[in-house]
């Protein structure tokens, strides 16, 4: 069967719509996988009794492999059949997702995540031309791919958090398998072999400025997603589902910004988006308290910033549909490269700052207890019990003092309750400050994206 010509309305709309949804979901999941596991890390950390550096590789391995494979595929993807690339990618992604869900050790999980990265890179590389074919035009395919990529990247942590809370961390990977399976069916569907030959050979240098902006913005996105989610759940103490709802302000802002982006020039949309992303991240760096309202405003600003800049940049990078496989693969590589570089910088900064802020938290908490307006007969045993809780707490979470304070009368004595509230605030605020340098670095990446937009404003669209 021949593929419809560009601009021709597709036949059998229901079937094509289902195919479109299947591939779009796979694209969204492949992008979400950059961050989907972040909320499952505490469970993985505990189950495999590993180190923070070790468990971080569950995220890093996927992003590094996607970046490397995508950039390598740029050299060859235009010589391959897009449906075959999509099929192989979906098959590898499916198998690796199952392997991740069944992994019995951290080494196996990291290996499976690396293989999943290979599948993700192939899937993303092959998906653009196929989406264009299914949708009836490259422009419609690009629109679907861009929306799936943006939303997928933004909802990743929230989705993973909800799955982890309702089921367990393997569920994060198990749900990806049927999505990859559906894409495999689409790739091997009735239109197999109908992939059009791409016109190729045009240099990719003209799309470098837009890809540079995307890399910087996705580096900043690491701050919004990874750090923001860790802050809300591990420091502020919200459940993964509550955290998912709070962080969903990012995709909500992204969706709300789309109509606004359409009314702006490309440079203004990208520069304006980065100029909202930067204060959003700066706002997270400068949280004055653990009041979730501040963080919610900051997340919404980040979401609007992403919604203004990323879809327009993606459309500019992918252009009019010529050479779309190479261009799409290049932009996948650029985005993940930005994420990897940001993670490589942020991880050691955060680890070091959290160690220092933990010391500050203990000193501030000690001051709260020592100065607490409670009797010595309550204060001394309470202080010794708090010390025991602190000694037993794991590095990755703020200890729960509820039981200790209840034992010493917090439910009946307002003064004890006040000490409890002050103690929790003192610890959470000190740990929150430990995120400041990391968020500031991500805000700097967003500021660099503003600079790049100004410098390359006439060359963002090739």
């Amino acid at each position, binding site marked *: 069967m021949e593929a419809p010509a560009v601009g021709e309305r597709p036949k059998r709309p229901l079937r094509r719509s289902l195919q479109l949804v299947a591939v779009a979901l796979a694209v969204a999941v492949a992008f979400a996988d950059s961050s989907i596991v972040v909320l499952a890390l505490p469970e993985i950390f505990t189950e495999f009794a590993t180190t923070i550096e070790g468990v971080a590789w569950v995220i890093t391995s996927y992003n590094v492999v996607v970046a490397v494979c995508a950039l390598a595929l740029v050299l060859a993807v235009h010589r391959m059949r897009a449906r075959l690339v999509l099929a192989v990618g979906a098959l590898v992604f499916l198998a690796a997702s199952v392997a991740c869900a069944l992994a019995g050790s951290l080494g196996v999980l990291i290996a499976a995540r690396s293989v999943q990265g290979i599948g993700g890179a192939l899937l993303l590389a092959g998906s653009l031309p196929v989406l264009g074919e299914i949708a009836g035009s490259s422009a419609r395919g690009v629109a679907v791919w861009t929306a799936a990529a943006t939303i997928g990247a933004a909802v990743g942590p929230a989705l993973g958090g909800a799955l982890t809370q309702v089921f367990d961390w393997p569920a994060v990977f198990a749900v990806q398998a049927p999505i990859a399976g559906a894409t495999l069916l689409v790739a091997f569907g009735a239109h197999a072999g109908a992939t059009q030959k791409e016109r190729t050979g045009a240099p990719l240098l003209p799309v470098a400025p837009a890809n540079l902006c995307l890399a910087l913005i996705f580096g900043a996105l690491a701050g919004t997603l990874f750090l923001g989610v860790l802050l809300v759940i591990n420091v502020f103490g919200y459940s993964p589902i509550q955290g998912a709802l709070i962080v969903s302000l990012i995709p909500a802002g992204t969706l709300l910004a789309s109509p*606004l982006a*359409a*009314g*702006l020039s490309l440079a*203004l949309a990208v520069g*304006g988006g980065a*100029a*909202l992303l930067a*204060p*959003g991240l*700066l*706002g997270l760096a*400068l*949280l*004055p*308290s653990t009041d979730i309202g*501040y963080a919610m*405003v*900051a997340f919404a*600003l980040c979401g*609007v910033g992403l919604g*203004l800049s990323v879809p327009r940049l993606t459309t500019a990078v992918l252009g009019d549909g010529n050479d779309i496989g190479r261009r799409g693969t290049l932009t996948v590589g650029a985005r993940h490269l930005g994420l990897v570089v940001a993670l490589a910088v942020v991880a050691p900064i955060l680890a070091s700052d959290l160690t220092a*802020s*933990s*010391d*500050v938290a*203990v*000193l*501030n908490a*000690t*001051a709260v207890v*020592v*100065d607490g*307006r409670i*009797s*010595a*007969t309550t*204060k*001394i*045993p309470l*202080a*010794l019990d708090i*010390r*025991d809780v*602190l*000694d037993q707490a794991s590095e990755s979470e703020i200890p729960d003092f509820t039981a200790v304070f209840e034992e010493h009368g917090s439910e009946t004595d307002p003064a004890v309750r006040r000490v409890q509230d002050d103690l929790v605030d*003192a610890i959470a*605020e*000190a*740990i*929150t*400050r*430990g995120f400041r340098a990391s968020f500031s670095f991500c805000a700097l990446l967003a500021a660099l994206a503003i600079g790049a937009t100004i410098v390359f404003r006439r060359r963002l669209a090739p």
Partner: protein
Amino acid sequence: MTSSRAAIATLVALLLAAATFIVVEIANGAVDAGSLAVRNPCDPRAPFPGQGFDAALQRIVLDGLDGAACELDATREELVLSLAPRSGAEPIRWDDETIERAVRAGLLEAIDDAEERGSLNAVVAVLLREVVERAPVQWLIDGGQGIADLFG
């Protein structure tokens, strides 16, 4: 207004809102939020409030800890953590003998101050001096509850 101008106006409004948000955060203490909030023990501070023996005892102990921390060039909180060495956040910087000497000196000075202020009668002050001079520091910590019960 064209849609383009409306979009630009909306973007400008959003940028202003973002700048306002940062200003509001700074105005609400963002710069110092979460920073080290312990005081210099050598500076005078308001006495622990309240009436009765429990409050008087806490005033003496807290003043004593301040005096000891000042002598050791540490904060009161670092000293307290050193007295409870299982909490491993801060390394212990002094040997037991140094801590005991500083704590005893600080407590004795605080008892003298409390007696001078009239917060303690002479008999209780003498008893407390005897306890502070002779009891092991760890016993003072663990037994604090018992002492308070005895007098409270």
